């Protein structure tokens, strides 16, 4: 095996790939060859590092030098300065990795120093397409332990002790779920991985699949052993091409090594895994709809009970867990459930991965111990709202969750704590909003999403979400009344109580939580017909005041041509007149306001 003195790790997650990390890797290999040091320096494409905002990311070991926002044109300098001559290229470092000339390693940067990584442990550290690197970091050792030293019931007991709860949304205790699946006897049983990640802004499952696909295969095989299942399905959406490709490679490698297939390690346990591609319907993240989809039917939820543990895929007992849940399993088996249960809070054990998005400086993935407060996540790790804007709210749990305000910032994160506040953990999306966001518009955005994604099987969800959205449209366009607010609220609770599956039951959450925490904004929309943040365009009015000097700058940029010099006469001699906006034609683009000379500032927005 070739020995290298330095390793260059380049992020190959979806985010960095879209900003040319594949080309950067090729360029780096080319440069190293040209310098004649390609046999000393290894270039590795890894999974997501988490700090997507700084992408494309490159880390150089052994120093752990953290380069961010790398362009193809920067590669030459890194190769010839750093890798050939050992001089760190300071201006390409991540801004926080250099302080008063002292260069910090990647692990000491605030964003990473405050995290604790279990599910994401290997992401950004190993080459996901190389099974040996996974094995180097204790990969498949948990499987060895399970098959040689543990009985199936011991495995389930260990997971129960760990206190692990489902990371996909509802937070059902994982050990109990495994127990139920193990209890039902049948000639065929299945293990299924729910990789149909649908929350807008959540991408932790994708990153695990892309960064450490073998963790998932190992965990599913362990689950197969524990529940006496012979076959596993991974249901992943086709919109994740990199994840699918890496999964396929991982399955092929695991089969070659005999870690999947007939009599693993010469025991009498056999297990096989197959990938099923989903077409990207949000509802297929609901476990029974997912099962329908795997069977080749239209993805619509079934009534529960019977639960999948009793009648799942092809009517056989099936264990379904989410990607992140599975990703915790190898560590739990190796280090013990006891170890895992010491991390986190009373009701929520271990760590959770959150996808930070929206108005936040460090957009990306963070894994933190449960019990960390929202404030620590948003400010200490996330870096707060950019451009000095004021924090307004954070939406947790995606379209099924709710908005929390600044008064909730010191809440320790946990399943029950978030539910108490009217939101939920969900799959871990965290969308931050600042003072420029209109909360009514946010509720409308999420409703727009759930309305589109409703499968249409049950009426409360199919019709209800549509009516909710119409009411919100009405409010946002200034046609709403106080009665509409009452109607909105009543309908929201009705949908929550009467929908078949979780999609419908949770769809009104964004409406309810914004109604509770931001009622004043709703009132401003319906009573004053004003949007306090200026997001709802229909409620805006642009007018030209007396300050107008008649220069015509606004008229020149107006795409509608609706600003004419028809106001009062400014200059008697030249008969120059002030300009006036024809509100009936105005599309409220704001171009005129930007064009008005700053000294004049004659245009106001109300």
């Amino acid at each position, binding site marked *: *095996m*070739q*020995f*290298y*003195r*330095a*390793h260059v*790790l380049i992020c190959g997650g979806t985010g960095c790939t879209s900003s040319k990390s594949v080309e950067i890797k090729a360029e780096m290999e080319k440069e190293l060859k040209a310098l004649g040091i390609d046999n*000393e320096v*290894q270039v590795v494409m890894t999974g997501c590092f988490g700090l997507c905002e700084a992408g494309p990311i490159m880390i150089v*070991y*052994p*120093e*752990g030098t953290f380069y961010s926002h790398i362009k193809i044109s920067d590669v030459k300098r890194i190769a010839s300065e750093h890798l*050939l*001559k*050992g*001089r760190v290229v300071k201006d390409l470092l991540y801004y926080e990795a250099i302080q008063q000339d002292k260069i910090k*390693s990647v*692990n000491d940067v605030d964003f990473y120093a405050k995290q604790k990584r279990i599910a994401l442990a290997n992401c950004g*550290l*190993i080459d996901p397409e190389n099974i*040996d*690197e996974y*094995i*180097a*970091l*204790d*990969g*498949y*050792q948990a499987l*060895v332990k399970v098959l*040689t030293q543990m009985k199936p019931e011991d495995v389930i007991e260990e997971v129960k002790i760990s206190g692990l709860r489902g990371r996909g949304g509802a937070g059902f205790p994982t050990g109990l779920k495994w127990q139920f699946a193990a209890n039902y006897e049948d000639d065929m049983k299945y293990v299924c991985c729910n990789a149909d990640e649908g929350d807008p802004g959540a991408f932790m499952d994708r990153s695990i699949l892309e960064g450490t696909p073998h963790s998932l295969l190992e965990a599913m095989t362990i689950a197969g052993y524990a529940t006496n299942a012979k076959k596993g399905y991974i249901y992943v959406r086709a919109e994740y091409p990199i994840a699918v490709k890496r999964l396929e490679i991982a399955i092929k490698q695991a089969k*070659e*090594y*005999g*870690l999947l297939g007939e009599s693993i*390690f*010469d025991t009498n346990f056999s297990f096989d895994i197959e990938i099923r591609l989903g077409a990207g319907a949000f509802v297929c993240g609901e476990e029974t709809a997912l099962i329908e989809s795997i069977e080749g039917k239209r993805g619509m939820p079934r009534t529960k009970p019977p639960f999948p543990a009793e009648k799942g895929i092809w009517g056989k007992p099936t264990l379904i867990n989410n990607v992140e849940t599975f990703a915790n399993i190898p560590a739990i088996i190796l280090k013990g459930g006891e170890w895992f249960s010491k991390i986190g809070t009373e009701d929520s054990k271990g760590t959770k991965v959150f996808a930070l998005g929206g108005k936040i400086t460090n957009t990306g993935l963070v894994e933190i111990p449960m019990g960390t407060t929202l404030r620590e996540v948003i400010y200490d790790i996330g870096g707060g709202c950019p451009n000095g804007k004021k924090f307004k709210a954070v939406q947790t749990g995606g379209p099924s969750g709710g908005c929390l305000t600044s008064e909730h910032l010191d809440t320790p994160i946990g399943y029950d704590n978030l539910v108490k506040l009217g939101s939920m953990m969900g799959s871990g999306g965290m969308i931050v909003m600042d003072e420029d966001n209109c909360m009514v518009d946010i509720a409308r955005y999420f409703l727009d999403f759930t309305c589109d994604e409703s499968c249409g099987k049950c009426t409360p969800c199919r019709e209800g979400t549509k009516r909710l959205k119409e009411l919100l449209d009405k409010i946002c366009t200034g046609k709403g009344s106080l009665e509409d607010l009452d109607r909105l609220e009543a309908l929201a609770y009705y949908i929550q109580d009467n929908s078949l599956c979780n999609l419908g039951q949770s769809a009104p959450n964004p409406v309810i939580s914004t109604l509770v925490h931001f009622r004043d904004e709703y009132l401003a929309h319906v009573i004053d017909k004003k949007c306090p943040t200026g997001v709802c365009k229909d409620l805006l009015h642009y007018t030209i005041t007396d300050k107008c000097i008649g220069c015509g700058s606004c008229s020149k940029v107006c795409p509608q041509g609706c600003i004419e010099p028809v106001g009062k006469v400014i200059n008697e001699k030249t008969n120059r007149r002030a300009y006036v906006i024809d509100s009936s034609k105005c599309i409220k683009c704001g171009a005129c306001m930007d064009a008005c000379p700053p000294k004049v500032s004659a245009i106001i927005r109300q």
Partner: protein
Amino acid sequence: MKKSIADLARIRQEALKNIQLRDQNEASCRIVVGMGTCGISAGARPCLTAIVDEVHKRGLTNVQIVQTGCVGMCRLEPMFDVYLGNEKVTYVDMTPEKSRQVVVEHVVNKRVIHEYTIGAVENK
């Protein structure tokens, strides 16, 4: 090829040697080679290559080899520092052959080769 549990352990050992470089806490010895313009022109690169090769040949997993710029004593290049425990030893006027000796004697056997150190050369 189907792997047994023993095979898996072997693969783990092998792959770990390579990947350990990315572990920030593992290294107990650091070799810092001067790679300024002066160092490179005096022949630091063959020395570096020799060190890398020797470290690998002996399967030393806890050694970190990094480069640095000019430290100001260009006339003594090629030079490198060995950090072992709390001690720092500077070797100067090196050749690939001497570099290999340092890896064996100093890093493996923990015996400083005094005649190659900066103190010895300066006092000549």
